């Protein structure tokens, strides 16, 4: 991991990037009194603020918590929730829980793969669409479940999902702009009403 901006200390206003999103991270750091045990909580906030965790951000967190960068990197890569690279404009999450799998979720994934040429965890070359799979969204009664951007839709087939995605990508200006948020945040918003 390259250490590019080592002069991260003091409060958010002083941050060399001048990036206000660091303020959110700092607030969480303060709430937990810079305890090293709060690393996962801090990474949650960081990901929420930035959409993904880039190297600079990880180094910043490591310095603030006085942890070795390798420790922070180790934790960030251990958990599926944390994403180290940005996502496409739209995201499609296919639930691969047992109930969804039994009802044909694998067909949906291969359908998307065939049409758009991206596998789970990949983004189309034009950064328009990211495909992800989820362990279980806990909506097993509606299986198979797909989350397209913020909408949780149940009872899907490969054809209906591909159709929905095509419409989404072709839509006027492709709906609202997204700043490359990770899937998990999408999910979080989908379930938050």
């Amino acid at each position, binding site marked *: 991991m390259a250490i590019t901006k080592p002069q991260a200390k003091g409060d958010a206003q002083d941050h060399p990037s001048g990036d206000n999103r660091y303020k959110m991270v700092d607030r969480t750091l303060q709430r937990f009194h810079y305890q090293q045990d709060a690393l996962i909580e801090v990474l949650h906030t960081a990901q929420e603020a930035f959409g993904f965790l880039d190297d600079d951000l990880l180094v910043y967190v490591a310095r603030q918590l006085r942890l070795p960068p390798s420790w922070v990197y180790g934790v960030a890569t*251990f958990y599926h929730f944390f994403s180290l690279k940005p996502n496409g404009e739209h995201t499609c999450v296919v639930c691969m829980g047992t109930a969804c799998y039994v009802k044909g979720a694998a067909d949906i994934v291969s359908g998307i793969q065939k049409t758009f040429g991206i596998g789970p965890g990949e983004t189309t070359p034009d950064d328009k669409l990211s495909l992800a799979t989820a362990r279980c969204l806990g909506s097993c*009664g*509606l299986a198979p479940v797909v989350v397209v951007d913020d909408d949780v839709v149940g009872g899907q087939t490969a054809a209906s999902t591909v159709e929905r995605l095509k419409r989404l990508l072709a839509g006027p200006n492709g709906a609202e702009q997204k700043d490359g948020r990770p899937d*998990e945040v999408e999910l979080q918003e989908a379930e938050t009403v």
Partner: protein
Amino acid sequence: MNLIELQTMAEAETEKQQVFRCRLLCCASTPCLSSGATEVINTFKQAIKVGKLDAEVQVVSTGCMGPCSRGPLVKVQVKGEEEVVYEKVTPAFAREILESHVVGGKPVGKQVLSLDMPFFSKQTRVVLSNSGEVDPERLEDYVARGGYGALAHTLTEMTPEEVCQEITKSGLRGRGGAGFPTGLKWEMVRKEPVGRKFVVANGDEGDPGAYMDRTLMESDPHRVLEGMAIAGYAVGAEQGYIYVRGEYPVAARRLQRAIRTAERRGFLGTRVLDSGFNFRIDIRMGAGAFVCGEETALMASIMGRRGQPVPRPPYPAQKGLWASPTLLNNVETFGNIAPIISQGSDWYAGIGTEKSKGTKLFALAGNVENTGLVEVPMGITLREIVFDIGGGIPNGLAFKAAQTGGPSGGCIPSEHLDTPVDYDSLRALGSIMGSGGLIVMDEKSCMVDVAKFFMEFCMDESCGKCVPCRVGTVQMHRILEKVTQGSATDLDLKNLEDLCRLVAETSLCGLGQTAPNPVLSTLRYFRDEYEAHIKDRVCPAGVCHITETPLRALV
């Protein structure tokens, strides 16, 4: 807040609810929300405002009512009449309910769920007794139904020792899957020398197809908090943590709100209910790692580290969080505590079988008519769950297997459908009770494919710390892939069985030790399917694409 104030609060709330002529309970748990419950609730609220019915009709957003596939669900309670549950309610239908049932007094004759149907009548609701009846975001609703009475009782009438004894006498066993006697665990932590101790609720429900804990946390958060506070008093802990799975933001938000209200009203925090007992609860969000359901890994994760397990002993009861004695129970286990205290251990021990007491939540899903969350007494047969409560298999297909315990469990074939559901019977069948996922599969499911699915899951989720699990799951998955593609030989099958035994016996934690279970149980009951793939090169269920040919064996 003391005992008398608690009673006054309960009475005041009950009185307030009595004022309304009609209450509309709308399910607002995740499955119903995804099917459009928010619009239904808003429609009701708006129509009531327009019709100036505010004084006589109350709209309540409740927790889960059970039959999730039929959501959004609305329960209409008119004073002096029997309650009616409507299924698949749309905003338009909501207006119809309001006009004809609430105002006109004539129930709408369609989309009614009969409360006599086996789905409801065969259930025994202990943990879920409030779910679908109270607004999870209102403390008063919970108190009106007797909430926090058990905590008040323990703090004023019982010693910590007595609480542990009561739990031991009830016969409650851990609901996380392994079934360790809860009272014994509490006793172990209580007996540790006085000092810093912790209580942890495990809400990291990683099994795909299981959502009992989420529903409980979403539908009745105070029940979990009360159970934890009682546990804190019993073992001498002043700090509790709830570890919530990262995928459950609604549950985390509702718990957070519940903690704040409970602290403000004196049910948690310093001097709980005017006693000398202090208890704080904090939430820790998981970040998507199945292995964190394992207790030592979960504690590592609470401490902000990689969620990798460590060998036991020392057990968490001796050395857990920050090397202090830690009581770790499943969320559902904590949900059982308040009823045991308030209704007595004898009452609780009267439910269930000799060795497995009480009730168990199951998330019924897969190829079954009624999917959803059910709570059944231990000892009920699988047949009753699948065919009576679940309503059988749709589309006239035949039942093939029921999968319990997720990636650590196994598949139970139709000839064992009459087995009573309890810890020991399921273990004898090569499966486990698990946390409560119950997936029903019909004849169109290929069992080799299902085993491969679970192995892929374990392979992905293996934390990588110990070799048997890290390497063994990859190898087993590779062999299963060969079987489903048609390139496996008899030798592969033998290797697979050897590997299963090796991984089960030598892995560090529960994930690896139980990872071979789905393979072993399908090999035990559906060996013919494996052989059909290998010898006849066909998939009997028509799921797998047999495209490859076996490599010639080197002799």
